[in-house]
């Protein structure tokens, strides 16, 4: 939508003594409405950024909650990249997150420095993604969901049973966080700010990727993979890359997780946790960057807050997912978009009216047209 300047006012003769022709006013009003509509997104974004920043300043329950939400949001957004955009929904996200977390923990147990631990963990996650991707891309749709579910369960089983490595059900606690010059992640505020920063970086990267030709190709994979292949794309490669990217970002979330919670145990990776990520994405809105982040916030809120008042909050969550699938498949973000469509449509109509309104003949003394009435 471009501001086309004021509408034609030449010859829109107004009854004498009424000052400015209504046409120009209407035109200005329309322009300012369009401008403000365009700004709602960026303004909301800036507001969210500021609010998040402020919420994280003090060391209290709220900031802990928000940090949890941010960590999960990273994993959820990554999941949407693979699931919503590429069409490959993974029920193994918690497993990958767990690998990222355990990687750091186990490395530290074996006396690696925190930074080395981070490096090792991310390397392991990447290697896992590269290796498993070869198998994972051989299937699509429901089969893919099933494979990733099995993967998640197996990873959990490993964490549970390979006691020598993972210390089983007790989990591993992580005491030392990395420092980078003046930035000591052992300081809670620095840690929270780091999490916030990583969140924005990951979100930005995902936004860029979604809008890139690669991102467009992923949407094409979901939409009609056969046709995309006929256009000369190596679709298996594209799916593989999407998988590896998602796994890597999820691993990053895992590293942050273990630093924030200073503990990793198998329960972080069980079936319920895997399902929770999918719920976050669906609830928040598939095929949107911010929807899953919103969904993560809601689910974490459910878990921490709602569970206090409602013992059967898991039932509630399951029912909510069913309700969303039945009635609002676009999730919360779908509702946000729908809310935005009506003003957009209205503005488009007003703009169309402005542009098509012909300049009346100069000699005419007809009152200014108000366009078609509806």
């Amino acid at each position, binding site marked *: 939508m471009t501001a086309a300047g004021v509408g034609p006012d030449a010859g829109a003769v107004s009854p004498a003594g009424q000052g400015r022709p209504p046409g120009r006013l209407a035109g200005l009003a329309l322009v300012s409405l369009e401008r403000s509509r365009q700004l709602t997104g960026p303004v909301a974004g800036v507001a969210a950024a500021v609010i998040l920043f402020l919420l994280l300043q003090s060391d209290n329950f709220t900031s802990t909650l928000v940090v949890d939400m941010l960590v999960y949001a990273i994993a959820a957004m990554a999941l949407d990249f693979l699931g919503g955009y590429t069409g490959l929904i993974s029920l193994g996200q918690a497993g990958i997150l767990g690998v990222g977390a355990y990687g750091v923990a186990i490395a530290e147990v074996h006396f690696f420095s925190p930074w080395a631990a981070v490096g090792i963990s991310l390397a392991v996650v990447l290697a896992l993604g590269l290796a498993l991707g070869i198998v994972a891309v051989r299937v699509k749709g429901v089969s893919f969901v099933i*494979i990733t579910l099995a993967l998640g369960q197996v990873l959990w089983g490993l964490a549970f049973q390979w006691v020598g490595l993972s210390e089983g059900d007790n989990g591993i606690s992580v005491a030392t966080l990395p420092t980078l010059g003046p930035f000591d992640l052992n300081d809670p505020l620095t840690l929270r700010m780091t999490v916030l920063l990583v969140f924005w970086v990951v979100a930005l990267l995902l936004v860029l990727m979604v809008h890139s030709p690669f991102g467009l190709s992923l949407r094409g994979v979901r939409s009609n993979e056969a046709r995309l292949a006929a256009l000369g794309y190596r679709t298996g490669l594209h799916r593989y890359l999407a998988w590896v990217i998602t796994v890597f970002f999820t691993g990053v979330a895992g590293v942050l997780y273990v630093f924030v919670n200073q503990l990793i145990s198998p329960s972080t990776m069980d079936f319920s946790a895997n*399902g929770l990520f999918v719920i976050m994405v669906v609830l928040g809105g598939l095929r949107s960057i911010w929807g899953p982040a919103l969904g993560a916030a809601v689910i974490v809120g459910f878990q921490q807050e709602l569970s206090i008042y409602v013992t059967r909050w898991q039932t509630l*969550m399951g029912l909510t*997912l*069913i309700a969303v*699938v039945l009635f609002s498949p676009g999730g919360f973000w779908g509702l946000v978009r729908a809310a935005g469509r009506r003003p957009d449509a209205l503005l488009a109509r007003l703009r169309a009216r402005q542009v098509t309104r012909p300049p009346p003949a100069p000699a005419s003394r007809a009152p200014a047209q108000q366009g078609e009435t509806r």
Partner: protein
Amino acid sequence: MAEFVAQTLNGLTLAGVIFLVSSGFTLIFGIMRVTNLSHGAVYLLGGYIGYSVIAATHSFFIGLIAGALSMAAFGLLLERTLITWLGRSEMSELLATLGLIYVLDDVALAIWGGTPLTINLPGVLGQSSTLPLSGIVYPNGRLFILGVSVVIAVGLYYLLRRTRVGAIIRAGVDDREMVGALGINVRLVFALVFTLGTLLAGFAGVLGGTVLNLYTGADSDILLFALAVVIVGGLGSYEGAILGSVVIGLVDNYGTAYFPAIAYSVLFIPVILVLLIKPQGLLGKPST
């Protein structure tokens, strides 16, 4: 050697229970394209209900039937409501049944609590006998499960391969629209197959409650087995469910017995192998 035979029998017993769960799952997917992720929860719920009925009536067999029938009824209800409302979208059905897991698990937790429960077998079934040829003393209950599973597997095979109803079901797996175009009441067939699937799962739950116990998380465990079976055997293939169950049951049992540290992941080996060699499953059809 005796140990190995005993482990093999254990594996086959496990295979029996897994078969009962996965055959229903694969038939439901095959004919309805519905991925019922709550199938594991159905298993667990059937087991819990069986447990309670046994506790009330002191009869194992009444409990067994109760577990089966209650889940059959649940399946019918589910199919007529949620599944029908969701229409044809595979992903929606998958996601909705995912949500259902949370609901069922929570309800089960509320009613039966988090402590593991075991179902005891009555009379002679609770004892052990000496097996001929090898002199191993083996629990009768497991032999019973094995026997029942084999009987049902054969019975289902007969149903699918030799009866008209079975032919319709197999045709439906191949081509849903055609079956409808032949004037057959497809909706009735759907309801029938779905109900049969959940009945089997509920039945398996009571059986499983004797050797595998009933506990929070048993549904995820059995679901994992069932999914591994359909990956190995092929989604939608009944014979694949049989084959896959035997493979997975044996592999898992040997894994747990001989490599306890990584038992869970030994399961993954046949899965990965099949995915690399024949992604649609050993007896599965190439995906369109």
